[in-house]
């Protein structure tokens, strides 16, 4: 036998399903957004964890960025003897020169391009598969080529298609990298140990280790990344190996990771991305929840006679609440199911929106768990948002069976001031156990949802708090505007008076509509403002005189040649050429740093990163000394390294944020590892650096003379006119093939492109929030459909033309749009200011055009939504409506 509550719930739903279309939509949109993001997150997890060994390239990876010490080399050499398969991969940025095909009459043209070079041995890849076109063995594709190149030596190379497109090349074309020529023998389709291509300096080129040696690019101090991937015997204990290798190699500056930590940066980035997208999804669900609450409240008002009847027949309030709660949950579950289907569809589109950011071969298979989770979340949200309006059932008196024609929403008992109302509501709440328990249940559910979606208690609390602040601000703002409207009189404007009084009448859900639209506007304004500010920072705020090119890996003996090339190409140019050494921080005040202790922690990278250290006699421009002294007029010498019982510590000046995060004070000692040699320095000062100047800036600067004898390379910056960029690059590549030229504009363009793409993906989801807001508005309008129809019929009967009625409705909806727009924009600006100020340390400026366009668009959206919800009512003949009274 079907329980009465389920039977009644089902019959009521089937009987008046059209009233629940919007409740259904509100839940479906919210759950759809959450499911889409959850499916995306699951796919990220699958892509990273499913093929974790392939992504790391082995069971264990040993990576470092400098020449290996003898002690470390001994450990590496011993691995093969212990039955471990080792694959050695070297990565570095390099310049490629090519002669690209031009239209027939122009012949060929020499071009160059910054690429990410990867040298492979015959064991690569240990896991996963490298997919290349044509499908031939890698060894064969990268083998030395005896004929075909203009100069020797010559090797085969595999290149990413984007390089071929940029340089107008094809299979069989010739390239020059360093001192070696290459023939493109394959096009890279899938690289097993790299899943995202957006965050790279240039296209990938793969060559053999033998070919890399012949390029002569790897010199002392070159910026290279060495990786040893280990395949352990199947019986090996991974943790034991990790422990041993970390113990033996970490002191040598080697980072030891297992496949479980594969792609930590990408994983962190995608985790953060899915977290923010998930919170936007939750915002959509909660905005939809406002629609649920309105629909239920309207439904309960309409069902008052039936509730009263049930009570006369002996049902108590809890039985009736049970019936309608079952109905709400039934509808919420169906809506959630539809949301699951919608989310699966949206999920197919997310990788398209995030093209370039997520891997090209990203899996988009839907899985069941996120869909089931979405249905559970939707049902829980339905419970949370419908419970409070359902409690109104308790105040429905059975005696209403005698007074069913009384409109309860207009029946006010003892109208009081807001303060009295608030006090009595709070008192009533405190004395009513059911209300107290329900409030706790609702708060617990919503908070639980937020914490679950945010994966953190603090972020969940912050999100809920921010949402509540937004709600109170919108409600408060609307109340103020209502108060103002009450005190403005429109004596000559009947329809205007009608429109403004309509806004404030009981049961009109104006505040709910303002809330739903306002939150969407707030979200969009925040995202757009933050995006504009950050993009402006990337695109517009590069100082006029900022350098446009960085040149790295200039060898000491190439200084004169470099200056000559630059002066030839850009006569009278100003450029900086500074010596640098690459170091790693190994100890602070004699306390060794264990990179594992700081991995994955906020700002932990200050302890694990590579520090490029330079020396200056004077404090560089764009730097401001905040503590300590500079060594301007001091001349010291005879620095000795630690192995020689160092007597004098060279001084170092540290950037203030780095100093703060490393916990330094003046006089602290830092031990830096330079190519395996410890280099101890003493902190003399802290500096504030203007990173936005795009000049050469450094976290650590040591006093002159202290780097003598260290493996120095030079880096240079220059401001290069647009017209000279290509010839200068060609000339540098031809004269010094080992020098890498980085075009700042290209890098910034790339960052801006990624950022725009990312912003578009996020905004597309946020747009769904506005759409949900519009659905909530239509839902709220449809609840009062009959009352509005009745009023319009009376106005028509009294001589109101369709145009005048349209004007009245337009004024009402326009005012809602104006309220929601103004408050939403205000809150959005406030939120974006907080984000930019506290998280990005950026100043914020109000953009009047965004404000104006935003306000107009919001008004247009509410007008359109309002008319969509009411246009049919205008067509009813007044007599047919009034006769039904």
């Amino acid at each position, binding site marked *: 036998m079907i329980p009465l509550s389920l039977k*009644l719930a089902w019959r009521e739903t089937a009987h008046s399903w059209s009233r629940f279309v919007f409740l259904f939509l509100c839940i479906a949109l919210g759950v759809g957004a959450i499911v889409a993001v959850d499916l995306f997150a699951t796919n990220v997890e699958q892509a990273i964890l499913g093929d974790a060994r392939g992504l790391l390239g082995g069971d264990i990876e040993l990576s470092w960025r400098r020449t290996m010490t003898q002690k470390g080399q001994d450990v590496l050499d011993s691995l093969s003897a212990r039955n471990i398969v080792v694959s050695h991969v070297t990565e570095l940025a390099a310049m490629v020169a090519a002669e690209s095909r031009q239209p027939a009459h122009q012949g060929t043209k020499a071009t160059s391009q910054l690429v990410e070079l990867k040298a492979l041995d015959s064991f690569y890849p240990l896991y996963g598969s490298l997919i290349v076109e044509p499908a031939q063995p890698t060894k064969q594709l990268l083998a030395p080529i005896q004929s075909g190149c203009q100069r020797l030596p010559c090797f085969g190379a595999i290149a990413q298609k984007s390089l071929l497109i940029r340089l107008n090349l094809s299979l069989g074309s010739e390239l020059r990298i360093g001192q070696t020529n290459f023939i493109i023998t394959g096009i890279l389709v899938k690289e097993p140990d790299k899943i995202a291509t957006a965050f790279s300096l240039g296209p990938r080129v793969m060559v053999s280790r033998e070919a890399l040696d012949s390029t002569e690019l790897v010199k002392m101090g070159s910026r290279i990344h060495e990786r040893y991937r280990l395949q352990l015997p199947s019986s090996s204990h991974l943790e034991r190996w990790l422990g041993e290798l970390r113990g033996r190699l970490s002191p040598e500056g080697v980072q030891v990771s297992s496949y479980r930590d594969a792609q930590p940066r990408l994983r962190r980035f995608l985790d953060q991305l899915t977290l923010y997208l998930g919170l936007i999804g939750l915002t959509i669900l909660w905005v939809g929840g406002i629609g649920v609450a309105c629909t239920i409240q309207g439904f309960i008002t309409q069902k008052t006679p039936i509730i009263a009847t049930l009570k*006369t*027949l*002996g049902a108590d309030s809890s039985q009736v609440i049970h019936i309608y709660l079952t109905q709400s949950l039934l509808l919420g579950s169906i809506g959630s199911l539809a949301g699951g289907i919608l989310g699966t569809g949206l999920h197919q589109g997310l990788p398209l929106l995030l093209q370039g950011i997520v891997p090209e071969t990203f899996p988009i298979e839907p899985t069941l768990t996120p869909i089931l989770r979405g249905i559970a979340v939707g049902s829980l949200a339905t419970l949370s948002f419908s419970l409070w309006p359902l409690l109104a059932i308790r105040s429905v008196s*059975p005696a209403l069976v*005698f007074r069913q024609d009384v409109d309860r929403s207009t029946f006010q008992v003892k109208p009081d001031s807001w303060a009295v109302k608030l006090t009595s509501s709070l008192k009533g709440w405190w004395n009513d156990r059911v209300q107290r328990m329900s409030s706790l249940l609702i708060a617990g559910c919503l908070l639980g949802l937020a914490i679950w979606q945010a994966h953190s208690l603090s972020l969940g609390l912050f999100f809920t708090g921010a949402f509540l602040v937004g709600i109170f601000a919108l409600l408060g703002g609307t109340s103020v505007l209502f108060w103002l409207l009450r005190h403005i009189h429109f004596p000559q404007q009947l329809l205007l008076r009608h429109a403004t009084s309509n806004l404030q009448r009981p049961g009109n859900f104006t505040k709910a509509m303002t809330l739903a639209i306002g939150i969407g506007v707030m979200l969009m304004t925040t995202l757009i403002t933050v995006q504009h500010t950050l993009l402006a920072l990337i695109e517009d705020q590069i100082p006029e005189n900022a350098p446009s090119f960085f040149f790295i890996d200039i060898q000491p003996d190439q200084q004169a040649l470099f200056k000559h090339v630059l002066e030839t190409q850009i006569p009278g140019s100003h450029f900086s050429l500074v010596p640098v050494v690459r170091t790693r921080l190994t100890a602070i005040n004699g306390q060794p740093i264990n990179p594992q202790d700081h991995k994955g922690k906020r700002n932990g990278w200050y302890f694990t990163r590579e520090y490029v250290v330079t020396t200056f006699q004077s404090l560089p421009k764009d730097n401001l000394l905040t503590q300590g002294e500079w060594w301007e007029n001091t001349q010291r010498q005879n620095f000795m390294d630690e192995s020689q019982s160092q007597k004098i510590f060279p001084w170092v000046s540290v950037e203030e944020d780095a100093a703060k995060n490393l916990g330094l004070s003046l006089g602290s000692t830092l031990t830096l590892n330079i190519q395996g040699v410890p280099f101890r320095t003493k902190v003399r000062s802290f500096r504030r650096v203007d990173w936005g100047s795009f000049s050469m800036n450094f976290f650590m600067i040591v006093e002159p003379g202290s780097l003598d004898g260290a493996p120095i390379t030079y880096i240079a910056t220059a401001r290069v006119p647009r017209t000279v960029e290509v010839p200068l690059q060609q000339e540098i590549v031809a004269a010094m093939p080992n020098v890498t030229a980085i075009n700042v504009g290209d890098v910034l363009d790339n960052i801006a492109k990624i950022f725009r793409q990312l912003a578009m993906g996020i905004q597309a989801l946020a747009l769904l929030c506005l759409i949900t807001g519009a659905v909530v508005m239509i839902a709220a309008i449809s609840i009062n459909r009959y009352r509005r129809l009745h009023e319009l019929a009376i106005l028509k009967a009294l001589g109101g033309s369709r145009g005048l009625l349209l004007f009245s409705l337009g004024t009402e909806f326009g005012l809602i749009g104006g309220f929601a727009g103004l408050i939403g924009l205000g809150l959005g600006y406030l939120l974006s200011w907080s984000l930019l100020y506290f998280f990005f340390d950026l100043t914020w400026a109000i953009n009047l055009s965004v404000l104006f366009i935003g306000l107009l668009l919001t008004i247009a959206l509410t007008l359109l939504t309002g008319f969509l919800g009411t246009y049919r009512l205008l067509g009813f003949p007044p007599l047919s409506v009034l006769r039904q009274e």
Partner: protein
Amino acid sequence: MHLFAGNQAVKILHDISFEVSAKQVLAIVGPSGSGKSTLLGLLAGLDRPTHGSIHIHGTNISTLAESAMAHFRRQHIGYVFQAFHLIPTLTALENVALPLDLQGIATGEERAKTLLQAVGLERRFHHYPIQLSGGEQQRVALARAFISQPPLLFADEPTGNLDSATGNLVIDLLWQLHEQHDSTLILVTHDTVLAARAQRILTLRDGAIVNDTSPPS
């Protein structure tokens, strides 16, 4: 009994005091606005008086909590309304069985069938209210009122929405069921013929009892 219109308290009923014997038929009559339905609502435990008390079978129903009152209604009271108040989404059979369903009694359907047969609706078990005529709907309401075998039945203008022939049929059935179940019947009516069938008539005017008579049998 007071209601508030704005800030102004309006006295609906005052100085009302009377007793009704078990199995008696009491008719409450009076002009519109005299407080008949309000009095019926109070007697039936659907509303609460602002002053005074109402005792049924020794229980002061004015002080019962909401759930206790609901329980009391289930056990002791049946209703017939002018506007029928059937649940539109339930069939005739389900409407009649509803009070027992609310009490969690599983055999409601069998008893509902018996009662529907008793009111002549054996062919209308699975019809929804909208598919029934006014007279049929009121007969369903009658069957529903008696399904719990309540000792006390309240009827508010039971023939008010019916033509006179159908009204007479419904009243005959009401009396028949009242006699079969030995219940006390209190009804509000404008219909003097119907009122004349009662054993006692209370006449209300401006919220007060102006007459309490027993018509000759």
